[in-house]
């Protein structure tokens, strides 16, 4: 099947309404290519989108998909996958969606380690609601709702993931097309929860965390002798206050996903014509 599927098969016929130049274009292209490259097609793929500019991604992609409510995309994705482990499940959303309103679910999705990928388009701002501070905004980032900056340190999603027992943590940059695609692909291939924080600049509301900023500051782990299976090394990198990294920061190669741990190996959509065989035993228990 994969030989026939091209990444454009994952494109819907809706034209994105993102601002010209928005990082989300590149992020989405990489996601579609990663899905096609890993042998998936729209009919076996389920994309769950959050709310925000980033969450519009579900509309522009073609697959089975749901556009959830704000912050709750991860549990939806987990439910989809548990009920049909044969599907390729990808969850996408923004930094506000994932680390603010959805922060609780993020920690638990990491712990749960369902075999799916989670791509966060991190633009360090709320785009769709027109430029308020997000949980990853810098402490002094001035917006209409935080005129002197949020005055609180940003959430560190990578550290949060590592502390919560993540089995795959990566960071990428939407405009580095090949590298981005490769990183998402590795998340898709990972047996478990593949988390990728993608710097996906908002050209309209964020003039600090720009393409130039990321291009100049990101350190590509592939260019140093880095072993992503080394948890101590990962700890050092994710807590590094001076540098930001691109690449796979941590991967537990022995990860056993939730479905395997709970013996979920087949789709649950079949139902018998009547009560399932053996149901009368349930009644006998109450004698």
């Amino acid at each position, binding site marked *: 099947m994969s030989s026939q599927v091209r990444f454009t098969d994952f494109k*819907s*016929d*809706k034209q994105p309404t993102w601002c010209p130049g928005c990082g989300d274009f590149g992020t989405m292209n990489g996601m579609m290519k990663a899905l096609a490259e890993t042998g998936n097609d*729209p*009919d*076996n*793929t*389920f994309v*769950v989108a959050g709310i925000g500019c980033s969450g519009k991604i*579900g*509309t522009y992609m*073609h*697959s*089975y*998909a*749901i*556009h*959830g*409510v704000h*912050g*709750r995309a991860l*549990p*939806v*994705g*987990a*439910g*989809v*996958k*548990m*009920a*049909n482990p*044969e*599907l390729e499940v990808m969850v996408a959303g923004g930094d506000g969606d994932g680390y603010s309103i959805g922060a*609780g*679910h993020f*920690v*638990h999705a990491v712990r749960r380690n369902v075999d799916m990928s989670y791509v966060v388009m991190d633009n360090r701002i709320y785009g769709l609601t027109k430029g308020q501070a997000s949980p990853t905004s810098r402490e002094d980032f001035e917006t209409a709702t935080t005129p002197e900056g949020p005055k609180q340190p940003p959430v560190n999603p990578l550290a949060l993931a590592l502390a919560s027992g993540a089995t795959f943590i990566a960071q990428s940059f939407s405009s580095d097309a090949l590298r981005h695609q490769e990183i998402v692909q590795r998340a898709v291939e990972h047996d478990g929860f593949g988390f990728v924080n993608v710097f996906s600049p908002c050209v309209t509301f964020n003039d600090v965390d720009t393409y130039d900023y990321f291009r100049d500051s990101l350190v590509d782990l592939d260019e140093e002798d880095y072993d992503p299976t080394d948890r101590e090394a990962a700890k050092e990198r994710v807590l590094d206050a001076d540098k930001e990294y691109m690449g796979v920061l941590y991967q537990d190669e022995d990860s056993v996903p939730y479905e395997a741990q*709970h*013996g*979920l190996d*087949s*789709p*649950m*959509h079949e*139902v*018998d*014509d*009547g*009560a*399932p065989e*053996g*149901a*009368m035993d*349930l*009644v*006998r228990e*109450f*004698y």
Partner: protein
Amino acid sequence: MPADFNWAIGGEAGDGIDSTGKIFAQALSRAGRHVFTSKDFASRIRGGYTAYKVRTSVDRVQSVVDRLDVLIALTPRTIDENLEELHEGSVIIYDGERTTMQDVEIPDEMVGLDVPLKGLAEEAGGAIMRNVVALGAACAVTSFPIENLDSSLKKRFGDKGQAIVENNKEAARKGLDYVTEEYDEDDLGYDLDTTDNDYVLLNGDEAIGMGAIAAGCKFYAGYPITPATDVMTYLTGRIERFGGHVVQAEDELAAINLALGAARSGARSMTATSGPGIDLMTETFGLIATSETPLVICDVMRSGPSTGMPTKQEQGDLNTLLHGGHGEVPRFILAPTTVAECFWKTVEAFNLAEQYQTPVYLTSDLALAVTEQTFEPDAFDMDAVEIERGNVVDEESIGDHQTEQEQFKPHELTEDGVSPRAFPGTAGGAHMSTGLEHDELGRRTEDTEMRVKQVDKRDRKVATAREREDWSPREFGNPDAENLVVSWGSNEGALVEALAFLEEDGVDVRVLSVPYIFPRPDLSEEFEAAEEVVVVECNATGQFADVLEHDTLTRVKRINKYNGVRFKADELATDIKETLSA
């Protein structure tokens, strides 16, 4: 009135009240007697008064009454709490050697049986069996064959090994022998007959869980909350045997979203919670309704608002279920009326959810959830379970529901409002579901005409369901009576038994018990024909009464109970009599 017998054990939470009560209830059921249990409990794990009450008869029993014949009192407070229900000749079993029980005074007209529960238990192998000694004593008081207790003890302690079972049997016999030897038979004037009937004994939460499995539910996600937790506990370890899975989510938001995901995968899926959890689920409820996802959401109501009285009865969530959520979305609301109906309404909820591709609220309440009730096993006849999956398309039929560009139409505008459904994996079915208003393809739209068409399409499902399904209420009493009494949910049992009390007083009524809250039966004709209509419910404002007044444009009288305790049959009869004559 049927010759029934009422028995209770009370003490402090942590005294093993619940399991002791259950052992006796099960023994009675196994001896072919009908049983109806109720619990008084506080929201704490240790300390605080708690009691397990059992009403039993050879005839069917469906409610509690204000009467106690035998009471095992482990604390003095147990006697105080139940004084009003005790009567001349009631027997109180207590351990006078227990420090706290040394000064208790048994009212003159009652029979106090001072049994050294702890001492006898120690003789049998351990003080922990104190309550079982009391059960043996209760057998002596009621001439109930102690062998019936044995099988119940085996069921309860079998896992812990034969020796433990034997010790418990021995403990029970010590209680029996002590009472037989020390007390005069004439003081112990109760006689519990046994029969050859076979009954099962279960509560409403268990029946909901069983109904879910029977209906082919494969996925359950929930977050613990009293009194809904037992649904999850029941399913855990059982649903797996049928290819399903239970997830304990991080909160109710996650629970309903997990359940939604599974439903989108095509699994029959459910979550259960109580009021506070329903509040948290409400945003996603709107998404489920607009995205037309079949899902069963069970609200086992407790007393609110906010954290309210978590361990007390109420039917206060009706308005939330009917109107909760922003905007307007159709919903189905079923309210089981008995433990057996908890089973059948759950099965029906899954069918309606899939037939009409919509969330279905299944609203039970604490009184049903914690009540164990006996039934003939036929009441859960698995052969009678029917499964309706609605309009699911496969690879062959999907072509009929695609555009010329072969795009699938998950929100196709149909006459009955029900669109085709394609499980993910179906070739040619890929589509987007969203909470945004959408067109037939599921794509966002702000087109004014399409908005109206989609709203109308969703509403049409209720209209067509109304035509196709039977929404009749359950009917009791005299169909020709002038006065009509209407109730919903767990009040049915008390109401049915109240009829006998009313008959004694020459009051003739017709009873309609409504298990369908939305859509609901049109009762206009019945209301018009009646001299008086009384609506009975466990809330302060009369939420169902309001709805019915609105439907029928007829003023109704109301009986509202909101002190946290369910209706009792005798009390309800008095209330009805007074309300009708007021």
